[in-house]
């Protein structure tokens, strides 16, 4: 197990290095992606462009520029944005707790609800409840997530805000947990639900499929035959096995949510986390923050992948064969 984890860690470093090179290539080498042209604005003179290239170091060899970028990102930590020359890293650091609060809460909701719906569907396979839940799950997967957020926000904070049950819904924004735990939760409930909806449908379908497979397995029949209660068979025998694929999925999806999907949710609700910073940088076509954020997102995804691999081997001893 120790050797396995060590090997995964080495792989992790290699992948992260490759990703940072790729991100650098995307932003600096793609034809037409000359950053000096962008900095110079509209109708620049040749002299202007040459000066900017020199000032920002774009005239040096690419590997020097890459090294410089990494140094500024990790060691000097003084990367500044092209748009307004503000430092990038403090803004990201300010955003991370907000983004994590959003993603963790949503993850709890989608995990619990998704597994619950999947189990209910499988137990009632083919009957009315199963049909309804399947349709709902499918609808959830098919909604544009930012649209759902926008429409819900409109309905609950404007159209039906006067209804007593919705009058507490705040019009977006973020309150730190330390300031007011209740306000924190109130501001996050809607974003949590919106971010969770897509995954709930997906998890419900996965759990349902693997439940149906496991429910017919011999050891489940044995468990039932020796007289265990239905609940005990479900919790101890069936559910345990069919949660293994969920663990894999969960790691991947959580990484993807923290590292990417938040870009579509945070601007709608004004959470001002990492995702909103990314969205604003896109709007300004501002490269240094985008590059830092892409790396940040990729880090999350890759680390989540590694944790999943390790957890998978730990959960399912059969995969330990080398």
């Amino acid at each position, binding site marked *: 197990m120790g050797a396995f984890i060590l090997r995964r860690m080495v792989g992790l470093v290699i992948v992260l290095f490759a990703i940072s090179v790729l991100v650098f290539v995307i932003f600096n080498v793609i034809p037409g992606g000359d950053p000096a042209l962008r900095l110079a604005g509209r109708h620049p003179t040749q002299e202007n462009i040459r000066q900017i290239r020199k000032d920002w170091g774009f005239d040096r060899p690419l590997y020097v520029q890459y090294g410089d970028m990494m140094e500024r990102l990790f060691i000097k930590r003084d990367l500044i944005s092209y748009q307004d020359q503000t430092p990038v890293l403090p803004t990201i650091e300010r955003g991370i707790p907000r983004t994590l609060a959003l993603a963790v809460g949503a993850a709890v909701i989608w995990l619990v609800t998704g597994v619950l719906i999947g189990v209910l569907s499988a137990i009632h396979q083919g009957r009315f409840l199963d049909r309804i839940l399947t349709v709902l799950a499918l609808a959830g997967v098919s909604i544009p997530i930012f*649209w759902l957020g926008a429409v819900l926000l409109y309905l609950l904070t404007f159209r039906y805000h006067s209804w007593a049950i919705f009058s507490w819904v705040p019009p977006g924004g973020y309150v730190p947990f330390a300031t007011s735990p209740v306000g924190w939760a109130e501001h996050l409930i809607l974003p949590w639900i919106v971010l969770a909806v897509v995954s709930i449908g997906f998890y419900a379908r996965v759990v349902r499929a693997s439940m149906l497979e496991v429910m017919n397995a011999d050891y489940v029949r044995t468990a039932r035959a020796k007289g265990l209660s239905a609940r005990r068979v479900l919790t101890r025998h069936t559910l345990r096995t069919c949660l293994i694929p969920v663990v894999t999925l969960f790691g991947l999806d959580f990484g993807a949510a923290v590292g990417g999907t938040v870009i579509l949710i945070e601007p709608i609700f004004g959470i001002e986390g990492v995702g909103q910073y990314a969205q604003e940088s896109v709007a300004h076509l501002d490269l240094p923050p985008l590059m830092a954020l892409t790396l940040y997102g990729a880090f999350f995804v890759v680390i989540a992948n590694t944790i999943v691999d390790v957890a998978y081997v730990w959960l399912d001893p059969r995969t330990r064969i080398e």
Partner: protein
Amino acid sequence: MTVEAVAVPGGRGGFGLAWRRLRRNPAAVISAAILVAILLVCFPLAPLFVDLACHHGPNDQNIQGYIHQGGHRIPVVGLDGTPIGPGLRSCYMLGADANGRDLAVRILYGGRISLFVGITSALLCVFLALILGLVGGYRGGFVDSVIGRLLDLIWSFPVYLLAVALATTLAVGGLSVGPLHVSSTSLAIPIVVIAVVFVPYVARPIRGQVLTLRRMEFVEAAVATGAGPARIMLRELLPNIASITLVMLTLIVANNILVEAALSFLGVGVPVLTPSWGNIIEQGYSSIVTAPALTVAPGIAIMVTVVALNVLGDALRDALDPHARIRIR
């Protein structure tokens, strides 16, 4: 246990059987009908609707215009800038936007772009994935590990961030490779970006399938008859992965329509002046309080299309999967 025997009616191939199963699945028939209706309405019927009923195109502004309804003269855009809302009439059925453009017409024409981007990017994505999956899976060895690492690398990126990064750099300067120049406002940019980002999601299952097929007797037999690698890949392996590819194509179209909307919403998808479902939401969202239809209607169009595609993809998988527990009388 149910008996999984499938009586093969004489003279029917796998696809014939699948077609029969599909026709007997009401969900598949309904979703296919919805999709055909959407395609018909967006492509051939949209200009007809414009010519016969409402006489203005998707980009025609009409800020100072009026419409007559029930003896009243209603401004298309009110003095306070609030556009007309939805109502039962031939023009401005779903209302107008702040520039007096007809929302219904824009959704029809936007559907063209969204469907076009979704379908072409899915085709491109599946095409690339087929090449990588077939070559990697069949050749194995060094080629396979290079392809595998490349796919892993793309896979490691958060989808939206990679798409946004690529689309942003391309949206600034366009792309010029040798004599080929793609303008920064070209539709090709979102299509290529979406296709590339999702290649690993399709290539991995295909490669897995090819890996198992490669060891089967019919491939060995083909090698024995002297068939070259290209022939084996195209004539022996490709037909065997056609069904899984078809299912994935349907699901990827659904997915890509959602991604197009998301990229357009972020401002790096379809160029702003071209209406697409994502762009219409993006432009309408700022006035959601005064004119909610501008946000709600295109979103519903996306949802209906994507649900139909997902249902059809699931039904296709059920119909094409030879191990599906379906009895045919």
